[in-house]
């Protein structure tokens, strides 16, 4: 008889009905898991958890973003005091200050916040999807695809379609190409990254070719697209980005529970009840649309998609994907980078894409060279 091996050794939970459990635990108080606050309405079966660290990180990043915004509005060719800035924002102070703050600096600040947030949100989504912190939309060629199509519309290759629509078409084309070329190997592993770098290089070359073949004035008009700049961006594209960002953030937060599970292998996520294929497609679509809308405003400032999530992850716990923190950090990085580009070498202005490249390039090298960590 095989009694020794097949005897029970300790009490094990049985699959029991929930009512049995409710009777057993009704008298017991429910403690929040370590590191969380819990709010509950037991009568309605409602219980919500808030991670303490996430709350602290998001409040901290919001405060830093606010401070950066006030600084952004203060500094420039004319330096204003933070008090004057705040006064003009709420409709007080003199008209000259009000004009400078509200007409000149504020629209550009909003563009910086929106683009930074959208790039970083798209970045953290794509990184989670690929389970690889290098796999941002910029690195896998989506920024360049969006740029190539947008430049095509400006230099007159395409017909008169608005840049955001063209950028969306380009981003989608690049995503389809990258995923198609990496087919079979999935989104994990280096084949996907290498395919993306190739696709990005091709679109980059196409952009340069188009610029080389048109009149110098047209090429100049399209130049900001190629480096990434927040100088005089179309207001309509910014509005569209604002709407897209708001909807995208809500969608990303709704997907948060699935995103947390997508960090595991597909088999684990699927075993825990996630419809992996459907979720991945939704996450990919969201990332591509957000990138396209942001490129239509600022051009390819893709490194924000790398830096923002990286800051958010270093501040957050490993329990969740830091969606909101990455979005806030992206906005913060973009505002500070454009502020630096605007003021450091004034009156010469350095495009924000170049500032982020100068900071982001070494950052990328550091990620590549430091020991591997599996925390997308």
């Amino acid at each position, binding site marked *: 008889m095989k009694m020794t091996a097949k005897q029970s050794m300790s009490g094990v939970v049985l699959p*029991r009905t929930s009512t049995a459990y409710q009777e057993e*635990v009704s008298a017991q108080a429910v403690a929040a898991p370590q590191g969380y606050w819990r709010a509950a309405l037991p009568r309605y079966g409602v219980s919500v958890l808030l991670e303490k660290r996430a709350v602290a990180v998001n409040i901290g990043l919001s405060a830093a973003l606010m401070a950066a915004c006030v600084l952004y509005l203060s500094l420039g060719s004319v330096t204003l005091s933070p008090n004057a800035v705040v006064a003009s924002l709420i409709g007080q102070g003199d008209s000259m200050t009000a004009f400078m703050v509200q007409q000149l600096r504020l629209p550009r600040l909003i563009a910086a916040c929106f683009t930074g947030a959208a790039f970083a949100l798209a970045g953290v989504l794509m990184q989670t999807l690929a389970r690889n912190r290098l796999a941002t939309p910029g690195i896998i060629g989506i920024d360049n695809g969006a740029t190539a199509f947008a430049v095509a519309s400006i230099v007159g290759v395409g017909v008169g379609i608005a840049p955001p629509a063209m950028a969306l078409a380009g981003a989608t084309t690049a995503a389809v190409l990258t995923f198609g070329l990496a087919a079979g190997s999935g989104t994990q592993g280096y084949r996907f990254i290498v395919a993306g770098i190739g696709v990005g290089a091709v679109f980059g070359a196409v952009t340069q070719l188009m610029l080389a073949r048109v009149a110098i004035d047209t090429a100049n008009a399209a130049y900001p697209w190629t480096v990434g700049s927040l100088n005089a961006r179309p207001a309509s594209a910014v509005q569209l980005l604002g709407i897209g960002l708001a909807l995208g953030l809500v969608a990303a937060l709704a997907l948060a529970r699935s995103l947390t599970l997508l960090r595991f292998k597909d*088999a684990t996520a699927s075993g825990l009840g996630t419809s992996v294929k459907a979720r991945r497609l939704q996450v990919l679509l969201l990332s591509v649309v957000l990138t396209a809308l942001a490129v239509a405003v600022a051009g390819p400032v893709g490194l924000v998609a790398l830096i923002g999530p990286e800051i958010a992850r270093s501040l957050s716990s490993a329990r969740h994907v830091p969606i909101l923190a990455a979005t806030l950090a992206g906005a913060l990085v973009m505002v500070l980078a454009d502020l630096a580009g605007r003021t450091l070498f004034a009156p010469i202005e350095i495009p924000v894409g170049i500032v982020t490249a100068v900071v982001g390039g070494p950052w990328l090298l550091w990620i590549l060279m430091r020991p591997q960590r599996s925390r997308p």
Partner: protein
Amino acid sequence: MTSLPTLSTDALSMSYGQRQVIHELGVSLPSGQVTAIVGPNGCGKSTLLSGLARLHKPDCGAVLLNGHDIAQMPARQLATKLALLPQEAVAPEGLTVTELIRFGRQPHQGWLRQWSAEDQQVVHHALAAAGLEALSDRPLEALSGGQRQRAWIAMTIAQQTPLLLLDEPTSALDLGHQIEVFELVRDLACQGRTVVMVLHDLASACRYADHLIAMRDGQIVAQGAPAEVVTPALVRELYQVECTLLLDPDTGSPLLANVRRASQPA
């Protein structure tokens, strides 16, 4: 008590890449017992398990859970009936044992039901069942292989499913850690769960399984209680090796002795 679930396949055919590795397989897994699926590399045992867990779509045929095709069930509902521990599972870095086990509650939770009294109770029980109370706040990276594997099994325990599928749960473990895992599996079966595991090692399968399914080339060549179905002829057919069979004097399960390469290729 919930009634015991039944898991079976009906003319199931599955492919791996271009190659069809399982052909019209019909099998029924005994409820409340430990079933081990064994066979040589590439015999389709892992593919069968991934089919049972709905990780891979069948070419044709179906996997039936209580008579219903699992392909028609919503993902979350299936996850409350059937838990899966894949081979070489990896967790995001930095998770602690309790945090991993809490993920097992995922199919029972939602936006407005994130941490109930029941969740707390079940996670506590799962920790105890796997003997991990003392390690509950350790990061997974700081555990031994056997402890980590028990933590993963505890996650599937917290899923509270009547069915548990394990894909080679001991493949990377040394002997002591293997025994830790197998004894936990036996405990789960004693408590009324149906466990199906793919195993590499025929000897462990004989010792710890109630029911053995031996596969070769995508077909079942033998099934039944290990003491009844394991014969030198079956071992030769599966692995092309000769052996002498002994009975374990303590447990009565078959032991393979004097294993050697068959003189003539089968």
